[in-house]
């Protein structure tokens, strides 16, 4: 077929034109075989720029378009759309990056122009082998799975449910609420956490569009965007949820006491319990590990007293199958365990606490009913709060945990409020008070008399009289100093959930270098992932405070809605393709596919590619022992790639030879 190729060189203002000689480049392109028209223009992506291409496609009857400008991830789709609107199949287009790959990386005009020429020639060579491709369309299931019932998951669930979508909210713990339920007051406005959280939890419970699957975990996920099949395992509570009325008689009678994890081990709960009074669903759960019936085959007191006969020791794990169109992961964070920093002695000195523990101490419903009482029964008169414990530290996490400066100040405020005669010190490296109203809160706490010292605590030792000696360098004075304290609070880092990697694997999304879920783009696609039907929100994507978590929860809901409202989803056709006549069924491609997109078709005994799952990575194509005729990558065929290489390495601007024959 005779090719009529149009080449368009963009100046990108001066971004490209100041380094690449665009006139020379255009002349060069005009001289290439098959090129009928080459033009340059200041902003190819602007309306007039786009019109220029459209007009040429129609006027010259272009068969292919090459645009040399910025990165294809930036404007590839823009120009594909231009082609489509002018009646040209968008896969007959090729983009050349002469900005990031050329003009931005050198000042040498001559070299830059030469490189740009080769890249343009390569693209012209390549498009001669392009073939029209059609987008793939799949229908969407109109429901959403949300994993994690913290404030983020709750916000997303309510938004989606109120827009009429069916939501499944899977929460691992017996109640939804997440970490926020453990907090007393929230910075910077100091509103009471449960006062603003509980109503939302109740809304979730009463919304007919939301199914709460509490005390449940994700077991398995298959399928693809718009059509996920999810297996959820509901752990046995040994209490029939339909019968339990949450009266709590069982717990008052239960003889087995256990350290209460909700109160960070600072008090006891019973073996049959609800994690906290406002729990949703308000259904009791038996802790199998501590239940006297399960451990010693005695007791069964709860069963005797339950007025509704809800106790069921025979309950088994239940597997629930869901079908959903989109997924939102909102699994939150874990707190860093500071006992690994031996010099702070957490776990060895009883009056060294973590922030979350003090959060419970200050809570009106906590182990001390909100009074600041130390493990040894005293009220502290000197308190030191140490910032950045496990954060901004090459030995643990290099990142800033973003919320600890603020919660440290909030705790300082609360401690001064509850123990008015106390002196509170904050040892900080830098204060990060970045949010709305945060700087003002920092001021307020200073005015309340909290003493801020810039310097990181070097170590804590215990003195003869049982006091904690905190040694640090005051970096503003340049002096090593010590404070004798009754209580030390470690503002510990936020870190990924222990099972974050496992969950990422199940949902086929990557994690970042710290182990948090990786968003598709840190600025432009903050709640999307490379798996297009899976969104992430809240602290599972990186340390976040409540305002940011809520914003992301709502954003993820909007993304999911935008996806579902399309009715069908388009998938890229740039994927692998099997020639069934030649495939020997060796299954090597199946073993290498990172997306489980290649499967074995038992009937024809050949490999087959599930179109929507394939991401076009090409791994299978490279692995096929019988070569490109059998397994080929649309849009990246051997002919196309070799034609490009010929231009760049051999300066052969007419592809004369294709080394590997291909169908």
């Amino acid at each position, binding site marked *: 077929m005779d090719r009529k190729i149009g080449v368009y060189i963009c100046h990108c203002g001066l971004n490209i034109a100041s380094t690449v000689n665009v006139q020379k480049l255009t002349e060069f392109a005009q001289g290439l075989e098959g090129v009928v028209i080459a033009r340059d223009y200041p902003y190819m992506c602007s309306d007039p720029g786009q019109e220029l291409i459209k007009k040429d496609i129609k006027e010259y009857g272009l068969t292919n378009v090459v645009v040399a400008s910025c990165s294809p991830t930036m404007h590839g789709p823009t120009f594909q759309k231009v082609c489509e609107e002018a009646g040209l199949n968008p896969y007959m287009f090729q983009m050349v990056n002469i900005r990031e790959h050329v003009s931005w990386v050198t000042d040498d005009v001559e070299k830059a122009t030469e490189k740009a020429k080769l890249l343009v020639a390569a693209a012209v060579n390549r498009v001669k082998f392009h073939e029209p491709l059609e987008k793939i369309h799949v229908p969407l299931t109109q429901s959403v799975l949300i994993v994690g019932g913290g404030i983020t998951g709750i916000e997303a669930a309510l938004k989606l449910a109120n827009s009429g979508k069916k939501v499944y909210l899977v929460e691992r713990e017996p109640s939804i609420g997440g970490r926020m339920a453990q907090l007393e007051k929230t910075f910077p406005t100091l509103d009471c956490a449960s006062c603003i959280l509980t109503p939302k939890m109740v809304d979730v419970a009463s919304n007919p569009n939301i199914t709460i699957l509490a005390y449940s975990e994700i077991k398995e996920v298959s399928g693809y965007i718009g059509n996920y099949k999810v297996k959820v395992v509901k752990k046995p509570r040994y209490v029939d949820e339909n019968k339990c009325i949450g009266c709590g008689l069982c717990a008052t009678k239960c003889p087995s006491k256990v350290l209460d994890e909700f109160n960070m081990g600072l008090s006891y709960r019973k073996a049959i319990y609800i994690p906290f009074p406002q729990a949703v669903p308000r259904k009791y759960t038996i802790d199998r590990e501590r239940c006297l019936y399960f451990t010693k085959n005695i007791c069964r007191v709860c069963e005797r007293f339950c007025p509704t006969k809800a106790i069921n020791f025979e309950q088994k794990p239940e597997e629930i199958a869901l079908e959903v169109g989109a997924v939102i992961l909102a699994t939150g964070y874990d707190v860093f365990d500071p006992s690994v*920093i*031996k*010099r702070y*002695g957490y776990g*060895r000195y009883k009056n060294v606490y973590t922030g979350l523990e003090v959060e419970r101490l200050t809570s009106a419903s906590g182990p001390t009913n909100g009074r600041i009482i130390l493990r040894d029964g005293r009220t502290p008169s000197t308190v030191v709060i140490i910032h950045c414990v496990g954060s901004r530290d090459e030995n643990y996490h290099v990142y800033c945990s973003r919320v600890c400066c603020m919660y440290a100040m909030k705790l300082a405020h609360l401690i001064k409020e509850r123990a008015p005669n106390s002196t509170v010190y904050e040892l900080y490296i830098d204060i990060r008070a970045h949010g709305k109203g945060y700087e003002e809160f920092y001021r307020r706490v200073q005015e309340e008399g909290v003493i801020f010292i810039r310097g990181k605590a070097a*170590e*804590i*030792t215990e003195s*003869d009289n049982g006091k904690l000696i905190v040694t640090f360098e005051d970096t503003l004075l340049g002096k090593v100093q010590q404070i004798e304290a009754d209580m030390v609070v470690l503002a510990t880092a936020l870190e990924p959930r222990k099972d974050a990697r496992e969950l990422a694997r199940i949902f086929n999304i990557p994690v970042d270098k710290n182990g948090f879920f990786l968003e598709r783009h840190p600025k432009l696609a903050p709640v999307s992932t490379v798996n297009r039907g899976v969104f992430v929100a809240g602290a599972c994507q990186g340390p976040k405070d409540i305002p940011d978590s809520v914003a992301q929860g709502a954003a993820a809901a909007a993304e999911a809605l935008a996806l579902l409202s399309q009715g069908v989803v388009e998938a890229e056709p740039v994927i692998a393709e099997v020639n069934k006549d030649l495939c020997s069924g060796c299954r090597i491609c199946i073993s290498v596919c990172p997306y489980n997109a290649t499967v074995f078709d038992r009937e024809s005994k050949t490999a087959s590619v599930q179109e929507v799952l394939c991401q076009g990575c090409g791994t299978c194509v490279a692995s096929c022992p019988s070569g490109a005729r059998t397994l080929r990558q649309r849009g990246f065929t051997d002919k196309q790639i070799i034609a490009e290489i010929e231009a760049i390495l051999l300066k052969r601007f007419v592809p004369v030879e294709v080394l590997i024959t291909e169908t």
Partner: protein
Amino acid sequence: MDTSGKALSYYPGCSCSRNGIGRHYGFSSLAVLRALGITVSEIEDWNCCGSNLYRVVDEKGSYLLGARNLAKALEMNLPEILILCPACFLSMNRTLTEILANTKVRNEITKKYSILGSPASSRLRIRHVIDFLVNDIGEEAIKNRVKRRLEGLKIAAYYGCQITRPYSYFDDPEFPTSLEKIISWIGGQPVESPLKTKCCGGMLMLTNEEEVLTVIEKIFNSYVREGAECIVTACPLCHLNLEMARTRLGKRISVDKRLPIIYFTQLVGLSFGIGIDELGISKNIAEHLIEKMVLTATV
């Protein structure tokens, strides 16, 4: 782990050698290893470790000194080198790390000691005797060898600052627990002090005695508070400083004059039933301790 027949080279360094101030550390360590069936071969014609103090004025010279010892160990085909003195341990580790990681140093060194440029040099390991006892010999072998159990004797381990810092590959740098493990394996009850890895004052004892005494006073007090009945050390310099300071602090501290301060290897040796001459321990101290031990096998 089966360590029988395991062979190491041994680098005594100036302080733990036959005439050094820490010779008893040397004697007792070798005796304990012998009792456990381990033979070590002293590096032939060894020289100074390169000394951390010397490194400050002549870095290359210091590495060359250390490298000569490493080269000799390789020539003996005993690339695992046992060291007792924490200062030597640090210095030799430093030399080895630099040779492996710093091309410039490696080139300089291998010019003189070509064997250190050979692939065999990757087998070189600097092993502290604590590391070797805990991680290679292990709990079972040590427990099996015990003839007198310490029966709950309260033992305080004083590590000093250098054993796990900066080369902390066998224990936590700030809160090591290896010595406590050994103490409990021979039946003792380890007592903790937050100051167990604090500096003993080192060489400052010669130039700023009062400063050193203040530091050691705190260390003693923290052990006395926990009821320590014996302090074990693992460093010749720490040992010397503790002993000197006890005399000079006099009434400033409430440490019993008879509280034994000994090398941990001497304590292990006593529990193994090794003779006091071999361990280099004085009769008084030995009897004081043996009195509190319980015979579990014929010595």
